[in-house]
């Protein structure tokens, strides 16, 4: 039987999604449902003096209006920061309360203040306009770099500082810097991005007055975790009375990890008004209230020798958390960022210091890559600049500092189990015709264009998150994953996973894994996820963890099934277990070639009864009937995908337009389960990173109004913004899991921003420019060039 793992299998989920039969949250309607619309703060920072709902309550179709007073009176808890971070001085991080409906003060534009439930959406929206909120408007703190100097947003949080965190050894770094031939410095802004999953957030809540159970259909990347948070911290309902279903979800990119105000409010309210509730975000609501990504201001330095060896690295970053710390808000700029700060290089000394600040902007949380794109952008800008200043070829300087042996003990935290950084960079050079670049540069110049080339070599730590490793760092949470595999009596297999697919293709890739392990056809394997009533508790999908953690739980559960099957087969075939070999779905006695299929074994496990005219159980003594196994897999280490990307851009100095001419990506994801799906993940990631580098910017004005709150104002990359990406792969197997797999979902978004920016800056002759390198900025930079291109002058 040919292995399904490694094959370009077309996706099982596609037919339903392609024929309009997908079932997204907004597609769900429940009889007698009401429609929710939220009253949101129009101010970035204000005291809420009074809310007058009297007029709105009398409006047509209004069922109920609830405010922060009621939710506080019912003792419903707020939104939470998921990870505790300790400052360099040992103090605990400072986290403000984040009630689901703001009662006393509003801290960002769009923060929910009250909610209207009405018989129709039109009526709900109309009534929202009749709710009168009396605000005392205060001066907001908006700018990341200036946040510590602004007025205190949250009582008791001095300088708006959540924590001042250090990873690494300042003294060792300073000593190494003193010995350096040269210090390379960069000042960077990692621009704030809005994740913009194409499906806006939504929730539909159904409260069953008989069973007192709440069913919440929601756009979540992690329904089990949502239920836990809503139950344990929100107090909405005990877990056994709260079912969370995340059906088809139209993309997440980190923005659908969090439990949001609207989900808590609607779940609580549904029980209160004893009616089902439907809420669907408009796109501008999503812009205002989805968690955003990135938003770092960084100063970093690299100490080097004249022959291009890296001696030490330092990074001083201010990370904007927005108005509140959310689930991955505090860990993204620390443990997901700091340990990766030194990149793919041997750097003897390093430290990263992060000051996380509150501002009157939307909360910032994990966004595709979460911390690792920011880390990679910093080190790769430094390395490229070092090459430029030292006059060493940009690939050569990288080669000189790559580790030569694996496991590679990194400067700060990670022990990278496997990799071959030289191989991927060599392959990327060859695939991109690196040595032919100067010819292409001259050709562009002859056409009045500026051409640049950029390289970035990255690694990342994903497969979030091995408990032992994160606990050694002082984080109290480990993120294992679970699976239950049910081999049905009649031969089909149901694979339950705690991971969640919102575009990743788990219905297919997880089925490939299980089918291979059990030796059955792909068509008889169903993957089930996204419903807390179905299958075991799991942590969900983010941090490129689904395969490297969740996939392994499936493997382990399948292997338990095979192990039990072998015990049963031995009894039935009247041999000892070690005389049986399991291959391609058959338990075969090596010597006699007598066999039982796994289907026959499954049937016998459920229906032990007569055989050979004797009433004799096929189950060995002490063996329970049934063929269902569960596994909870907690990996021993992160997985460390890595690679090198090379881009060429062409700038039209007359317009400032940057065109990505060539993009080559060579990645090492270990063993690949489905190349079709993996390539798709890489394409999407690269596009998202190019979006950040060239197009996307989240712009708040000085009063905290988000002026890029629609697709008219926020530049979402379109099809004609990209060339065809040229992908290649190298392969070193991960040693921390039995499949040898590494994560692939975030790599593109991690590697591409520095690749593109290095190319743009190369085209501009080394002139620094901030992301996004929009036509306006680049046009200005072209004007500032010392020797303007003759034709463009």
């Amino acid at each position: 039987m040919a292995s399904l793992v490694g094959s370009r299998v077309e996706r099982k989920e596609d037919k339903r999604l392609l024929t309009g039969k997908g079932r997204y949250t907004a597609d769900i309607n429940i009889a007698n449902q009401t429609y929710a619309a939220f009253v949101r703060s129009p101010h970035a920072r204000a005291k809420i003096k009074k809310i007058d709902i009297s007029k709105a309550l009398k409006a047509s179709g209004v069922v109920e209006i609830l405010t922060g007073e009621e939710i506080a009176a019912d003792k419903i808890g707020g939104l939470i920061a998921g990870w505790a971070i300790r400052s360099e001085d040992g103090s605990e991080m400072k986290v403000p309360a984040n009630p689901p409906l703001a009662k006393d003060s509003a801290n960002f534009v769009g923060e929910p203040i009250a909610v209207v439930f009405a018989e129709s959406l039109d009526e709900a929206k109309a009534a929202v306009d009749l709710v009168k909120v009396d605000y005392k408007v205060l001066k907001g703190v908006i700018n990341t770099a200036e946040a510590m100097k602004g007025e205190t947003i949250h009582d008791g949080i001095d300088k708006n500082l959540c924590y001042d965190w250090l990873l690494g050894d300042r003294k060792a770094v300073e000593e190494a810097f003193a010995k350096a031939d040269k210090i390379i410095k960069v000042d960077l802004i990692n621009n704030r991005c809005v994740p913009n999953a194409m499906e806006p957030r939504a929730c539909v809540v159904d409260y069953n007055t008989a069973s007192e159970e709440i069913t919440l259909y929601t756009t979540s990347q992690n329904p089990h975790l949502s239920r836990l948070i809503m139950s344990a911290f929100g107090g909405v309902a005990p877990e056994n009375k709260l079912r969370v279903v995340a059906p088809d979800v139209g993309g997440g990119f980190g923005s659908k990890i969090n439990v949001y105000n609207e989900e808590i409010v609607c779940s609580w309210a549904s029980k209160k008004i004893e009616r089902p509730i439907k809420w669907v975000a408009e796109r501008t609501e999503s812009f205002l209230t989805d968690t955003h990504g990135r938003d770092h201001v960084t100063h970093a330095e690299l100490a080097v020798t004249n022959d291009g060896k890296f001696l030490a690295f330092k990074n001083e970053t201010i990370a904007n958390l927005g108005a509140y710390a959310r689930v991955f808000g505090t860990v993204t700029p620390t443990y997901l960022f700091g340990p990766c700060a030194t990149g793919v290089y041997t750097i003897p000394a390093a430290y990263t210091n992060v000051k996380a600040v509150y501002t009157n902007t939307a909360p910032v949380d994990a966004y595709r890559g979460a911390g690792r794109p920011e880390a990679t952008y910093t080190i790769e800008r430094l390395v490229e600049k070092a090459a430029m200043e030292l006059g060493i070829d940009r690939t050569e300087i990288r080669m000189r500092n790559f580790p030569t042996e694996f496991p590679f003990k990194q400067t700060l935290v990670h022990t990278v189990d496997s990799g071959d950084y030289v191989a991927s960079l060599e392959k990327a050079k060859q695939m991109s015709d690196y040595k032919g670049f100067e010819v292409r540069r001259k050709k562009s110049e002859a056409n009045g264009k500026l051409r640049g080339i950029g390289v970035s070599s990255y690694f990342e730590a994903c497969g979030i998150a091995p408990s032992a490793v994160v606990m050694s760092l002082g984080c109290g949470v480990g993120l294992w994953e679970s699976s239950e595999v049910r081999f049905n009596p009649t031969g089909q297999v149901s694979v339950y996973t705690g991971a969640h697919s919102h575009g990743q293709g788990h219905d297919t890739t997880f089925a490939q894994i299980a089918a291979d392990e059990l030796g059955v056809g792909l068509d008889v394997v169903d993957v089930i996820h996204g419903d807390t009533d179905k299958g075991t508790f799991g942590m969900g999908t983010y941090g490129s963890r689904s395969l490297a953690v969740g996939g392994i739980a499936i493997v382990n559960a399948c292997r338990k099934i095979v192990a039990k099957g072998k015990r049963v087969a031995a009894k039935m075939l009247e041999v000892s277990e070690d005389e049986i070999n399991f291959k391609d779905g058959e338990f075969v006695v090596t010597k006699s070639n007598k066999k039982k299929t796994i289907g026959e074994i499954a049937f016998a496990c459920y229906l032990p009864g007569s055989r050979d005219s004797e009433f004799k159980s096929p189950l060995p003594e002490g063996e329970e009937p049934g063929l269902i196994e569960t596994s909870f897999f907690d990996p021993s280490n992160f997985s460390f995908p890595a690679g090198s990307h090379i881009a060429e851009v062409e700038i039209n100095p007359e317009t400032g337009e940057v065109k990505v001419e060539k993009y080559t990506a060579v990645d090492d994801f270990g063993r690949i389960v489905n190349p079709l799906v993996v390539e798709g993940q890489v394409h999407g990631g690269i596009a998202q990173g190019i979006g950040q580098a060239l197009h996307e910017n989240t712009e708040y004005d000085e009063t905290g109004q988000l002026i890029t709150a629609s697709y008219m104002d926020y530049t979402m990359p379109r099809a004609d913004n990209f060339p065809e990406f040229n992908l290649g792969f190298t392969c070193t197997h991960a040693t921390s899991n039995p499949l040898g797999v590494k994560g692939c979902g975030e790599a593109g978004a991690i590697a591409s921003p520095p690749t593109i920016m290095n190319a743009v800056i190369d085209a501009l002759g080394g002139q620094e420019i901030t992301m996004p390198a929009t036509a306006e900025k680049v046009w200005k930079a072209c004007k500032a060039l010392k020797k303007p291109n003759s034709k463009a002058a």
Partner: protein
Amino acid sequence: MTKVTIEVNGKKVSKDVPDHTILSVFLRDNLNLTGTHVGCDTSQCGACVVHVDGKSIKSCSTLAADINGSKVTTIEGLVKDGKMHPMQEAFKKMHGLQCGFCTPGMVMSAIDLLQNKKNPNDTEIREWLEGNICRCTGYQNIVAAVKEAASKM
């Protein structure tokens, strides 16, 4: 209220709806054809593209009353005799979709492109799809799917 009478996926439908009912709402809420998606409020994302009298339009910015008497095809209407349309098949084969949310609009738009141009090149495909935003695929496999469909249609 106004009476909207149109043919949707080959079936005549007639409903009394508020005057301001837009076509995407009419399809989703009144006809339960939830394959047509709404991803923005500004007629930018293209998830709502359907065909009206054979031409692709954004159903989120079309009043249902304005197309009285027209023939509408949605993503649900592409399957014939249990078989997917060659464009749907091509999207599956080339992995032109991930989360699937933008996909119905993408497919409807791409079909209209091939009605206008039999064998478009990469640039023509990318420019045509300017009005359809996808966050998952980086568009590469969508372009490949359109080319694949062009070779089969």
